[in-house]
């Protein structure tokens, strides 16, 4: 293993690695991020090794297990080089055919290609699939090529070149100026200019200074930091080292939540390798700059993602926030100046150093530069990670990249900013997405979660969900947050259970104001946002629950009933057999009837009723029709009134 002692050493190593690699040699890359692990990437990898052995091709064909490609909906994903053929949803059973037909005979297997639902065409190359075509992958690009466990893959792509440039060609002040000029804003949620934060820590008195990576990605529905950290950890390390150089720090911390075991694992390997290659430690690349990094695992507390709380946790104390009369950038870990940024922010830094601030500021909008990775999830057709220039519209993200709403349902809203954000309704779909625009819409950018909801999502129940989540996660230190959330939860639980009263909406708004003004940290000051934004845009749904005891989305258990439409029921026994409570009566070819007193509203009957039949329906806000008489339970022929399915 080479110990790199100069900029030339790095260049030479890169030449050596790329020289050894034959670009015409067949190569299989297999996505091995957490989602693909879950869908069987390990088994596919084993099958590939096995099959190459059987066919005697182990030497001729290279295999690489990369990080997350982002199209998690269709994992595991295989790409075959040099042709760059992309196969989706690959199973171990597909592997022998892939090796013998595609690798050996250079034939394409149609059924494994992406099928464009609009044109009916099969698409061979990943970059032509609409999900990828409309993206601009800068920060995320390395994930497709790099084996996160192998530093040489990262170096082969030009990795650590930006660090070498910073250390050897620029003074710390010049690096700082470049990042400030790039107007890089923090990707963790707040959008505070990173360069200004760095400068504060740099100028603060106190020694040592610390740089910290926040990978406590707690926002439910967001997972881009995990994918960058587990798929391309060296990019984060490189960005961190550059920040440390600009700030004058020699110790860094990376705070990773332990719910991300793969990220913890891959990061530990990356740290080890970076030290071996002389990219961390004393005298990095012969520049005289000294820097090393420690990993700290978070133990599962949402509030610990807040900067002062995270720093308390690094000190080994309970991860609760403290008042920030003095910013952590001046007095953080062990009361020393500490710069905290999120994973994606650091991962963007090498690009800025390498290509320059002018290049970076040419991408994005007036106030928000560069690209942002979003986690596009929920009831959208193509779920996964999406990197687009700031300013791309919500409609483009959801429809062009995401392929629209699942199952032809109607779009209802998109949730951004996690539990601190809000829900944006249809009329604002053409808004450009950047830090300032989303704030105007009563939501926020947050770390990049984008949860799409269709007409089957109850907005009031969703507000209750966020309040319940935050109630659990509030540390309880300050009264407005602790008590305010509990009271809000009580009110919202009443509303979804049909016990809502006149004045509840106003009371929610009143509590929200107090929490916003008087809570200690951002968890509390933003906690009411999901509720406030839903009241702003979906007040009629709240009113339907309160006044008519009706759930328009047919979700709230206490306000709905399941009913079998005797007009449509064909007596197939499916719901009857699957009902876990034995609440359905009926015989083959005779209309089934739900015994409302036994029904626990689990919804299984609704799910298993064949879509063509669609006899099971949900009713809300009106009484369930009485069961049809025993004698007339033959299929068809009767006219009955019911709610919508």
């Amino acid at each position, binding site marked *: 293993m080479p110990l790199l002692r100069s900029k030339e050493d790095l260049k030479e190593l890169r030449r050596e690695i790329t020289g050894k690699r034959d670009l015409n040699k067949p190569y299989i890359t297999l996505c091995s991020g957490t989602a693909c692990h879950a869908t069987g990437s390990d088994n596919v990898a084993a099958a590939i090794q096995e099959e190459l052995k059987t066919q005697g091709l182990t030497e001729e064909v290279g295999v690489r297990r990369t990080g997350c490609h982002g199209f998690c909906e269709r994992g595991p994903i295989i790409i075959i080089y040099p042709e760059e053929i992309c196969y989706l949803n690959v199973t171990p059973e597909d592997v022998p055919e892939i090796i013998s037909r595609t690798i050996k005979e250079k034939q394409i297997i149609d059924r494994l290609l992406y099928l464009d639902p609009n044109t009916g065409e099969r698409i061979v190359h990943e970059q032509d699939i609409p999900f990828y075509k409309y993206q601009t992958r800068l920060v995320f690009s390395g994930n497709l090529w790099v084996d996160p466990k192998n530093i040489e893959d990262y170096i082969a792509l030009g990795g650590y070149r930006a660090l070498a440039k910073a250390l050897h060609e620029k003074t710390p002040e010049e690096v700082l100026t470049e990042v400030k000029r790039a107007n890089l804003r923090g990707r963790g949620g707040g959008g505070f200019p990173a360069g200004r934060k760095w400068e504060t820590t740099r100028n603060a008195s106190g020694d040592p200074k610390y740089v910290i990576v926040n990978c406590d990605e707690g926002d*439910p529905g*967001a997972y881009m930091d995990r994918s960058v950290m587990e798929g391309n950890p060296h990019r984060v390390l490189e960005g961190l080292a550059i920040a440390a150089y600009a700030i004058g720090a020699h110790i860094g911390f990376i705070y990773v939540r332990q719910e991300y075991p793969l990220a913890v694992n891959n990061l530990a390997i990356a740290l080890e390798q970076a030290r071996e290659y002389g990219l961390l430690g004393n005298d990095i690349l012969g520049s005289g700059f000294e820097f090393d990094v420690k990993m700290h695992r978070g133990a599962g507390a949402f509030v610990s993602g807040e900067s002062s709380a995270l720093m308390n946790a690094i000190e080994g104390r309970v991860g609760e926030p403290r008042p920030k009369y003095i910013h952590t950038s001046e007095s953080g870990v062990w009361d020393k100046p500490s710069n905290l940024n999120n994973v994606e922010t650091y991962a963007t830094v090498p690009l800025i150093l390498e290509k320059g601030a002018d290049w970076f500021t040419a991408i994005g909008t007036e106030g928000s530069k560069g690209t942002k990775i979003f986690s596009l*999830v*929920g009831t959208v057709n193509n779920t996964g990670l999406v990197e687009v220039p700031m300013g791309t519209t919500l409609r483009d993200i959801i429809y062009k990249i995401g392929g629209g709403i699942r199952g032809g349902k109607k779009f209802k809203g998109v*949730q951004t900013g996690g539990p601190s954000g809000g829900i944006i309704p249809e009329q604002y779909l053409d808004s450009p997405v950047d830090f300032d625009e989303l704030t105007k819409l009563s939501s926020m950018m947050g770390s990049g979660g984008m949860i799409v909801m269709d007409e089957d999502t109850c907005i009031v129940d969703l507000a209750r969900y966020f309040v319940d*989540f935050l109630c659990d996660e509030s540390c309880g230190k300050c009264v407005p947050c602790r008590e305010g959330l509990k009271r809000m939860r009580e009110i919202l639980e009443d509303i979804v259970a049909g016990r809502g009263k006149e004045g509840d909406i106003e009371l929610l708004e009143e509590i929200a104001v107090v929490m916003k003004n008087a809570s200690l940290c951002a968890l509390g000051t933003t906690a009411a946002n999901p509720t406030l934004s839903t009241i702003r845009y979906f007040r009629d749904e709240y009113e339907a629950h309160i006044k008519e005891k009706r759930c328009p989305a047919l979700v709230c258990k206490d306000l709905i009933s399941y009913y079998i439409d005797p007009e449509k029921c064909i007596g197939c026994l499916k719901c009857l057999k699957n009902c876990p409570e034995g609440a359905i009566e009926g015989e083959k070819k005779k209309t089934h009837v739900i015994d409302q007193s036994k029904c*626990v509203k*689990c919804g299984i009957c609704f*799910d298993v009723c064949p879509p063509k039949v669609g006899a099971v329906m949900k009713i809300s806000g009106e009484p369930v029709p009485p069961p049809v008489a025993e004698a007339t339970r033959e299929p068809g022929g009767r006219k009955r009134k019911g709610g919508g399915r």
Partner: protein
Amino acid sequence: MVEIDLKRVDEIIDRYKGEAGFLIQLLLDLQSEFNWIPREAIARISERTRSPKSHIYRIASFYTAMNLNPVGRHIVQVCLGTACQVRGAPKIMDRIEENLKIKQGATTPDMRFSLRRVNCLGCCAMGPVVVVDGNYHGKVTPATVEDILDQYE
């Protein structure tokens, strides 16, 4: 009472000799070793690291990743992150609670299952997600819950 091998506890404590701010990391290691943090272990840490027991309890009770009670043979985690939520995770949780006849956070009397709610595992594209002993089950429906649980004796 469950017997605890204090030697293992000592080994874990030794990993963090002389490090500042080690306590959370140490407790996490204990948690993954025993699946919970026994009283005896806390006493041992307190004795050897000269930290007050109250301080250790405060940390162990604050974090969701740490258990102060013994857990079942299999740990069932139901993701209730927003993405899973809008794809029907609450119905999955209800179904599992009814099936195991326990509420979230509890352990079945036969010590077969412990049921936990988690707030996002970052597998949002596959939701609703249920993880049993580290095995991920994606796109779960109320009707498939039973089959999943049956795989774990």
